[in-house]
């Protein structure tokens, strides 16, 4: 009798294990759809920008200005060696890049922008989940993407392209100020670099 009991017990436990294990995967999917929802909510919460967009589109650069702002915030976090903040801002930048409205551009520019966005979103996402060394590696390519974007969308404010010859065989970034604050080295070599170009 007790043998029967333990056999039943064993079968029950095995069954539970299987159920739990298969549920685990479902949970994961559930979570990821939840994330999608929250992202969509964010999009909606940014909805008021849609109204602004039409107006801003008249001036020539819709929400590319938002991308630039988020990029500069991210740059400042890297200058300050702030890994956690850079993670956060990487995610923000990925979102604002994703929201960039390119519908008003005609084809060669439009496909270039689409391409830039795709690449930039990937790097920004990586920044949102990496240690600071990796963040800086991705920031280098991201800076090129943003520079190429500005060449198409233009900018409201004067920007300065700065260049540090020491980091990874020479690396550039954009800044709103002439003063050199190096995002690739932060406090280790804060002022390494020079202004390479002025972008209006």
């Amino acid at each position, binding site marked *: 009798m007790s043998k029967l009991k333990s056999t039943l017990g064993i079968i029950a436990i095995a069954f539970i294990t299987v159920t739990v294990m298969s549920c685990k995967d479902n949970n994961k999917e559930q979570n990821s759809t939840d994330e999608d929802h929250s992202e969509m909510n964010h999009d909606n919460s940014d909805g008021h920008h849609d109204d602004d967009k039409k107006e801003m589109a008249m001036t020539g650069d819709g929400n590319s200005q938002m991308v630039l702002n988020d990029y500069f915030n991210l740059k400042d976090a890297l200058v300050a060696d702030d890994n956690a903040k850079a993670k956060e801002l990487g995610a923000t930048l990925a979102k604002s890049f994703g929201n960039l409205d390119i519908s008003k551009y005609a084809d060669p520019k439009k496909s270039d922008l689409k391409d830039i966005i795709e*690449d930039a979103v990937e790097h920004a996402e990586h920044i949102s989940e990496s240690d600071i060394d990796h963040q800086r590696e991705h920031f280098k390519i991201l800076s090129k993407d943003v520079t190429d974007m500005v060449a198409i969308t233009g900018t409201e404010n004067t920007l300065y392209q700065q260049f540090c010859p020491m980091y990874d065989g020479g690396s550039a970034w954009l800044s709103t100020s002439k003063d050199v604050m190096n995002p690739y080295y932060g406090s280790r070599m804060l002022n390494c670099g020079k202004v390479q170009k002025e972008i209006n």
Partner: protein
Amino acid sequence: MRIVKIIAIIVLLAFVGIQFVPTTRNHSDIVPSTDFMLVNNVPETIQNKLQTSCYDCHSNNTQYPWYNKIQPVAWFLEDHIKEGKAELNFNEWDSLSSRRKASKLRSIIKQIESGEMPLNSYVLIHKDAKFSEAETEELISFITQLKDSL
């Protein structure tokens, strides 16, 4: 003693049980025309190396050793492959724009130089996936050349 026996049986049963949980297999007989090897002129030694060291997780076709058909190893592997393919799929290379290709090539160089790829857990099992110093050098110079020619 009895309790040990019971626990052993439970573990065994659970082990058998989880074998029935289905997994998605990463398998395809078709090499699409966008494949990295087909669109680039890749030297044979590098082709072989990429195939053994990278393609298991970065293409649509994984060469599964027998133990990778067994749970929970298969789950562990499934996750890796999913992640690996999302990051870089050599089979779909030519569908990327030049900008994205350059980006990916740069990342490949970085990851190999820093020893992040191939993953330690992978090399542990696939001894031949490991890059010797000479192989690393050959691959990096090839990838760099490819990147500069984009």
